């Protein structure tokens, strides 16, 4: 691995997360993948280790770091299990609208519990008929005196049903299209807020994905994040910030797969030799390692750029997510190939890495949407010059 000149704190975070991964995540990863049991025990260890506070300001009980350190943690956890890692990272996604646009009162009310890991957060934007086209959103929020009344259904929501704090995008003025969306904080126990069934997924099966159903769900007007109509800006800025984290998840899954493939290639004997002595396998391993390193470099560079406070990071964070997730899919598929027939069997770790990798090309904006963002940014830059 290239020396990315981690600070002392970053080395400490990496070592701590590696310890948690080896001692608490790896031993349960295959079992939770099978049973789909939510990893509360592991999340408790992460909470006790102060890791939910990494990206939250010290003022609210966090550690005051940023996305780069969140990426270090997510990458390490993902080496052991992409599903458990996303339960952790999705809470950051749910918290970021509050961190970025929340009022002082909202921050004081919600961030300390999230930083302590006492509560999990989740972000809700996707709907059955509004995926990549978020402007087709049907969920509405109608102002009613000191309250908003929410109606509609969000689906494919990571941490849905498990999280206690939800940041939800809803239309406050449908006639304005994208400019009519707003983001709200909804507490789990709010009357009128229920959950649909838990989705049965290809990968990241330790994580929970559910529908959020709002039926005349009444929330105080203080729970509006930012201003009415600011919803898409809040959502886009949240994704710009969180995308390097998905890149880090992808890099971690890919690295976990490479480590497993390398170990297997050295142990597996065919034609009287370890298969790692064959050039065909060696070239695959070399390509996998090179692609992972390139992805990691891009993820870290974009995470550091987000932390630098630079205003427009959309293109670079989209590149990090796009490239790292494509690498993860490629590397994990090659990992299965190196394992051969064993790679196809659930008894071995290879196929799980491949199943877990796939989602990174899809969520937080499909890779096609990432390409849209990148291309539009390129064109905009050209026009400005």
């Amino acid at each position: 691995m290239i020396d990315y000149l981690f600070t002392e704190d970053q080395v400490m975070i990496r070592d701590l997360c590696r310890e948690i991964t080896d001692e608490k995540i790896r031993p349960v990863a295959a079992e939770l993948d099978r049973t789909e049991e939510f990893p509360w025990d592991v999340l408790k260890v992460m909470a006790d280790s102060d890791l939910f506070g990494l990206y939250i300001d010290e003022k609210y009980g966090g550690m005051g770091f940023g996305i780069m350190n969140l990426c270090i943690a997510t990458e390490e956890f993902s080496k052991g299990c992409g599903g458990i890692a996303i339960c952790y990272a999705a809470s950051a996604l749910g918290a970021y609208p509050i961190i970025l646009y929340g009022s002082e009162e909202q921050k004081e009310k919600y961030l300390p519990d999230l930083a302590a890991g006492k509560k999990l957060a989740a972000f809700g934007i996707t709907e059955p008929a509004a995926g990549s086209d978020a402007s087709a959103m049907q969920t509405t929020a109608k102002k009613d005196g000191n309250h908003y009344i929410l109606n509609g259904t969000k689906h494919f929501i990571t941490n849905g049903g498990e999280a206690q704090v939800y940041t939800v995008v809803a239309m406050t003025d449908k006639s304005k299209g994208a400019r009519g969306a707003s983001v709200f904080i909804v507490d789990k126990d709010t009357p009128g807020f229920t959950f649909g069934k838990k989705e049965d997924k290809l990968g990241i099966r330790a994580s929970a994905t559910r529908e959020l159903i709002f039926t005349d769900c009444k929330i105080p007007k203080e729970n509006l994040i930012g201003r009415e109509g600011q919803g898409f800006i809040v959502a886009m800025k949240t994704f710009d910030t969180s995308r390097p984290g998905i890149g880090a998840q992808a890099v971690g899954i890919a690295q976990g797969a490479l480590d497993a493939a390398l170990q297997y290639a050295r142990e597996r004997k065919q034609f009287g030799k370890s298969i790692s002595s064959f050039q065909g396998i060696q070239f695959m391993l070399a390509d996998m390692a090179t692609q992972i390193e390139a992805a990691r470099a891009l993820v870290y560079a974009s995470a550091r750029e987000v932390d630098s406070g630079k205003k427009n990071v959309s293109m670079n964070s989209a590149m990090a997510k796009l490239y790292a997730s494509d690498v993860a899919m490629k590397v994990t598929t090659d990992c299965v190939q190196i394992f051969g027939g064993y790679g196809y069997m659930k008894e071995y770790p290879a196929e799980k890495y491949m199943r877990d990798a796939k989602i990174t090309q899809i969520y937080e904006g499909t890779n096609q949407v990432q390409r849209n963002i990148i291309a539009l940014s390129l064109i905009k830059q050209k026009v400005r010059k």
Partner: protein
Amino acid sequence: MNVIICIKQVPDTTQVQIDPETNTLIREGVESIINPFDMYAIEEGVRIKEKFGGKATVLSMGPPQAEAALKEAISMGCDEAILVSDRAFAGSDTLATGYTLAKAIEKTGNFDIILCGKQASDGDTAQVGPGIATQLDIPQVTYVKKIEKIEEKSAVVERMTEEGYEIVQTSLPCLLTVVKEINEPRIPSLKGRMKAKKTIVTSWKAIDLDVEENRLGLTGSPTWVSKIFTPPARPQGEIFEGPADETTSKLVNLLKNHLS
């Protein structure tokens, strides 16, 4: 409730090899760790402090590099760390070690419970804990697997025995040595690790303690080691194969002959 935890830095036994010529440990290049049994003592000490308030102090006698072990204990939640380190302590056997640590504990002043691991993974004597209690003239309970109750002046603990366990009530202050069944040591948190990095370990030399010089180090150690050897491996048993009635009578005859 003030707790003192005594720990020892030992070579990581998972990496240790024995020199076949001298039958001693090859220490070169082997990482040092906190004696695994002491990890349970640290965890229990921190839990007592978290539950009852007060202070958890971690104490070790050893070379300067033992500071790393003490800092790790700080990262797990101990409040203070003391290293007792001096050339005068070199060559201490369990008696001299117990004496020196007891003197250091006396110097810290106010304590309610002293915790030790049941034994160290390198020496395996299990004598230092009891030695400290004897020096301090306080009650001791060894092989503790559970602390049931702690009150102002007494504690009730479960003590492991070969057949099961005993429930023992003791007055405080007391010394407990603990077994691995007592808890699961925590992974040090990020804040704990950061605190440990900044912590300055208090260092005491012989001159800082109220000790009699002739009871320290090699001079104060009546134990001498005549020979160190690996115990012979247990020979393989005999397996009788065949129909049950034949093998049974064979076995009975063999036992009879053996007894007569």
